[in-house]
């Protein structure tokens, strides 16, 4: 596919003689003790793919239960556990590890470094995150404790007080929830610190901040946001555990405590968290769209400025989740306006992507298709977001399926789409083989169709008044047909994800050999071999523009002549 074959000479024989091949056990050991950022990145991605399948299965069970009224596939109790675990898993064990997996793999390669700033902290963070995930799922076995009540957490992913206090949630389920998130939160914090130190202190010669690839820029911003986002949750979880174990009164209304303050603390984490998830999705789109349009990204400085702006504004919008708790009119107005304000930098980004597409020679690979799907869906997600930011509108639709549809449009329509795009784009770099494009197109179309059948319909269910978190409904509410449609769409998405999983596995052995630069791209990760050697680069690269590989391929027309 590359227009310009690169002068790569494979001087060292890569094949290992049969006598030196390691056994399975030795290989496993190597992966467990590894501190290599690329292996850790792959571990992150495998880990989150596993939980994507688990939480996806939970979502499908939820949809089976809701497919028609008075269904009894799940009991009310199990239903509560499933939507709690689905939400918690998707945010903490799928979204963040996926994005940190990408960051781990790509960031050092893009800035021309040989590893992260603190490789051992990196490994430690991954294993903390992994341990947190398995701790959460162990609650299915251990959550009942000695009380014989419930097992997995069933308090919703936002776990509002006072429902989480001992009196209303006996047993250990809620403790598993809190502890697992504290543990994985420390892992996340470690990775965020690591990415910041890597990007600031490990860049190769000549890579000034304004020459960094946008992926790296956005991951730097996300990591900074993570520092002040995940830590309030950790603090609030500690308070919850103090209440549950030491008899504290933070959220105990009978002793003068306030359940409202938990809601504040949770959303001080919870809303910036959305940007922690979606900014890396933007980051992936920022890499893929220019490469497959054969144009440099439009408005690079505006993209950076908009991302920094989103980081700051996103810290002041949390209470738009709380319009219905009864805040003052001033607070309602403030949070309505600040939420609308986020639309401005986000809009700048959308226009920049469209301007990048404009006049480009677009190549519709699977990665690019997912990015285009992302553009459409993120636009709609943003528009419903602005609708919900208007507090009187929110009063009508709060905790209805309209809200569910809105945030799934962001988290699936934008984040998951970009994650898929990123996997199709960087898979050849990580494995040396391309993913099958035919299966990829099947995956894309099935997933997109399923997505729209499910989540477009959910908006209407919300407008018809269906609330979230109900395990069944009366047949005379007029929701029967739409619910069935939503469930069918979920099934189609499930099939698409299975095709994707098969494609990932099968392409590892049978995929077309990719070469070092299959997409004719411009950033540094494509200058090294696929998969890259442990040391990434034989000699430290030196860059003079935002597209070092373009400069190398076009010595007659280098970028540095146009960039200030």
């Amino acid at each position, binding site marked *: 596919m590359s227009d310009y074959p690169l002068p790569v000479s494979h001087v060292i024989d890569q094949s290992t003689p049969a006598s030196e091949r390691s056994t399975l056990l030795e290989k496993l050991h190597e992966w467990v003790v590894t501190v290599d950022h690329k292996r850790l990145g792959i571990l992150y991605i495998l880990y989150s793919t596993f939980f994507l399948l688990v939480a996806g299965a939970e979502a499908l069970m939820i949809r089976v239960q809701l497919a028609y009224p008075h269904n009894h596939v799940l009991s009310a109790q199990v239903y509560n556990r499933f939507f709690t675990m689905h939400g918690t898993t998707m945010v903490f064990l799928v979204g963040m590890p996926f994005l940190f997996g990408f960051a781990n793999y790509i960031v050092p390669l893009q800035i021309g470094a040989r590893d992260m700033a603190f490789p051992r902290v990196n490994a430690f963070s991954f294993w903390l995150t992994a341990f947190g995930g398995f701790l959460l799922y162990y609650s299915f076995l251990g959550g009942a404790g000695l009380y014989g009540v419930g097992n997995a957490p069933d308090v919703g992913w936002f776990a509002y007080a006072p429902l989480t206090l001992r009196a209303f949630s006996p047993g250990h389920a809620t403790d598993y929830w809190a502890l697992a998130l504290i543990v994985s939160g420390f892992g996340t914090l470690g990775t965020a610190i690591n990415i*910041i130190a890597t990007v600031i202190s490990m860049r190769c010669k000549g890579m000034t901040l304004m020459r960094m690839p946008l992926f790296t820029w956005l991951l730097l911003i996300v990591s900074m946001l993570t520092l002040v986002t995940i830590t309030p949750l950790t603090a609030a979880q500690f308070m919850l555990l103090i209440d549950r174990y030491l008899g504290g009164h933070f959220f105990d209304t009978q002793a003068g405590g*306030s359940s409202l303050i938990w809601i504040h603390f949770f959303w001080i984490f919870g809303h910036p968290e959305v940007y922690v998830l979606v900014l890396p999705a933007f980051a992936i789109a920022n890499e893929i769209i220019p490469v497959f349009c054969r144009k440099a990204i439009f408005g690079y400085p505006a993209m950076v400025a908009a991302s920094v702006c989103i980081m700051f504004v996103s810290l002041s919008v949390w209470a738009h989740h709380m319009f219905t708790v009864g805040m003052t009119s001033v607070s309602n107005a403030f949070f309505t306006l600040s939420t609308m304000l986020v639309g401005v930098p986000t809009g700048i980004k959308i226009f920049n992507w469209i301007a990048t597409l404009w006049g480009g020679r677009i190549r519709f690979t699977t990665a690019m298709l997912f990015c285009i799907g992302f553009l459409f869906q993120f636009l709609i997600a943003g528009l419903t977001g602005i609708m919900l930011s208007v507090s009187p509108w929110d009063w009508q639709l709060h905790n209805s399926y309209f809200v569910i549809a809105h945030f799934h449009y962001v988290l699936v329509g934008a984040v998951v789409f970009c994650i898929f795009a990123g996997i199709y784009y960087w898979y050849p770099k990580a494995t040396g083989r391309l993913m099958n494009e035919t299966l990829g197109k099947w995956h894309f179309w099935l997933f997109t169709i399923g997505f729209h059948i499910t989540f477009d319909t959910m908006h209407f269910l919300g407008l018809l008044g269906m609330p979230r978190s109900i395990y069944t409904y009366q047949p005379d509410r007029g929701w029967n047909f739409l619910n069935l449609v939503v469930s069918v769409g979920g099934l189609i998405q499930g099939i698409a994800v299975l095709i994707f999983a098969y494609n990932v596995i099968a392409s590892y052995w049978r995929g077309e050999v990719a070469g070092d630069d299959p997409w004719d791209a411009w950033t540094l990760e494509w200058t090294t071999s696929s998969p890259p050697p442990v040391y990434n680069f034989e000699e430290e690269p030196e860059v003079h523009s935002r597209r070092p590989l373009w400069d190398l391929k076009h010595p007659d027309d280098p970028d540095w002549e146009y960039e200030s």
Partner: protein
Amino acid sequence: MSSIPVSHPERTVEWHLPNKRRVGMTALIVGESAIFTIFVVAYVFYMGKSLSGPTPAQVLEVPILATICLLSSSITIWRAEKAIEDDRIGSFTVWLGATIALAAVFLMGTAFEWKKLIYQDGLTISTNLFGTTFYSLVGLHATHVVVGMFLLTSTFVLSLFGWVDSRQSERFGVVALYWHFVDAVWIVVFTVVYLIGR
């Protein structure tokens, strides 16, 4: 395995980047500040909302000696930093020892304060909102002092064995940065708990 050498010898540049350990510690401090902010907000939010006694005005005494000790430990650790940069290891060990001693006095102060509160005044973490927020916030800070003590003491032991010299000054600078943060947080905690909240 190989990669394409990406360099343009005719366009070489001066290249200097910040120290990665310092950047990492700064990032950690930003994250820790957010944790402290949440606990401080909770403390301020619940000020005077306890439904039963004892109240802060009844039982809290301003820990002047402990505060002076902790704040002056920032000066001694700064002296230690200067000493290790100039490779004056003897002086470094003395200043470091002084820092540890001052921090120990601070922790002793907290220990006696808590002993008095628990045994004489009957205030525990579950007594009322004041107890819950007080022990959480002051305890969180004390935990950070203990972690800092561990870092300082291990450096101190290493320097007694003669294993520390100016090559480690950069790493020690990171420990010192953390210690300054612990001191700065105390100024906030002190102001909120002992000056405003009493």
